[in-house]
């Protein structure tokens, strides 16, 4: 089975969030980039498990600059066979998805995996957009994925429960918690990653459907009101009369 895993970089989860250039750009000063956790822990690791069980090939693809290659090597160290970098600034989800769909179109993948969302833009958009651009079924927020020949069995989250569904390949799946467990790359993987193929592909022209104009920080919270642990009637009274939430 030929599997394509879409990888995005994201700031380390402990990064301080700040903006520069009149609040129009994310301040990258001192920020450590990692592979977006959903892409790495769930999509990539599950792809590797499927390959280990039934054979095949795992390709990772990212849209980004040469500086993102450290993040790509990390994904290769975990075990992907090869990497593709589409050489462009991932301006928005539509731009990113169309670039990946164009690459996928000419390379015949059976399965395309994404994480459920990135932890910086949280849009949950790219997977569905790739699926539409390729006219493929899309199963979002899958928590389990099994391959039986050319058919996929998936467990996915639905409002207030879970559902088991079946779909024929090729298909696009976005992966959520439960899909796989995080893998720490070993020394052999890290060494091997240095020589694995990394192809750079030129982007196609795509119109700008959206743009981020500016950023703002949320209003600072007013100081916490401490309540005597003996007096829970007071808390209930405050939640009712002051906060008006019960």
């Amino acid at each position, binding site marked *: 089975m030929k599997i394509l895993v879409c990888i995005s970089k994201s700031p380390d989860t402990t990064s301080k969030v700040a903006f520069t250039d009149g609040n129009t750009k994310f301040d990258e000063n001192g920020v450590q980039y990692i592979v977006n956790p959903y892409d790495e822990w769930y999509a990539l690791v599950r792809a590797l498990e499927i390959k280990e069980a039934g054979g095949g090939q795992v390709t990772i693809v990212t849209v980004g600059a040469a500086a993102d290659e450290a993040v790509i090597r990390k994904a290769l160290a975990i075990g992907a066979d090869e990497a593709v970098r589409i050489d462009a600034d991932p301006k928005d989800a539509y731009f990113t998805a169309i670039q990946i769909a164009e690459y996928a179109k000419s390379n015949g993948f059976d399965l395309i995996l994404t994480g459920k969302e990135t932890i910086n833009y949280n849009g949950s958009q790219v997977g569905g957009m790739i699926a539409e651009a390729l006219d493929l079924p899309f199963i979002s927020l899958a928590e389990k994925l099994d391959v039986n020949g050319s058919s996929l069995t998936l467990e996915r989250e639905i409002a207030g429960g879970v559902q088991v569904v079946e779909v*024929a390949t090729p298909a696009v799946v976005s992966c959520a918690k439960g899909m796989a467990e995080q893998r720490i790359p070993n020394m052999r993987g890290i060494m091997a990653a240095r020589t694995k193929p990394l192809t750079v592909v030129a982007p196609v022209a795509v119109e700008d*459907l959206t743009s981020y104009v*500016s950023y703002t920080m949320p209003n600072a919270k007013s100081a916490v009101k*401490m309540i005597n642990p003996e007096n829970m009637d007071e808390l*209930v009274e405050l939640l009712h009369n002051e906060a008006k939430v019960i």
Partner: protein
Amino acid sequence: MILVYINSTNGLSKSALETVTYGKKLGADVTVVTNGGANADLLSTLGEYGASKVIVDRSVDGEDAQQLTRLIASVAQTVGATTVVFSHDLIGKAVAPRLSVRLKAGLVAGAISTPEADGTIKVNVFSGKAMGAVKVNSASRIISLLPNSIQPEKTGAECSVEETSGQGGAAAIKVISTKKPEGEIPLPEAELVVSAGRGLKGPENWGMIEDMAKLLGAATACSRPVADIGWRPHHEHVGQTGVAIRPNLYIAVGISGAIQHLAGVNGSKVIVVINTDPEAPFFKAADYGIVGDAFEVVPRLNEAIKKFKAAQH
């Protein structure tokens, strides 16, 4: 023309009413498109929230995003929609991106308010640690509204309901089974959430948390370590890598408040933190704090809620 998609399979949810209300705030002429089995009488009440007309396709069950996308795109074309509004829920996250590509319309995913004077729309970014203003450059736009961002408002009277069929084509996804725990409130839609973490020391101690949730009519949630060690199911995990929620009230018991946890709950309107450690970082993000032993404070709080609820009736 504004087109609003809602899922009415399980009746009209609060987020569906929010979405129609949002549509009405964007323009006078709002058409609602929906699928599933809700009866016409119920659907006609969407007029009260601003719909001029409801179009329903009962042959589409909503389980296949591709089929649903074809239906909505076809209706959008028929009514000449320039804006399509979704709820940023499980279906919206699967369908809105597809529709964006199909219609070449820019998508604002997870909008938290109506457009600003300059036309930009605010969304949460960096897992709620900041907000971004998004501008749509295309002629038509798609907006998915984060649940619990605005309140449903009644502005009109019942509207007409029109049946349609066959616009979605065939479904490629086959549903094998569906499991829905009875009587539980789905987390992303809950207005009140009671959550607990490692401070509870073991899964057998969750009874008092479930009691509190029942008393308040709240959903239950948990921190990541608790889901990872299997004390609670994964779907209850709120935080950066779990579910992001924005209820009116979030009560956190025995959760220290790591930055990754805060990222999933900092959209909550009011936060109550109960923790034995006065230095727990969560107190900095809280509105009300109680330093004390959960095993004493929570039963006391449950009694206080019981008393309050009894006085209300």
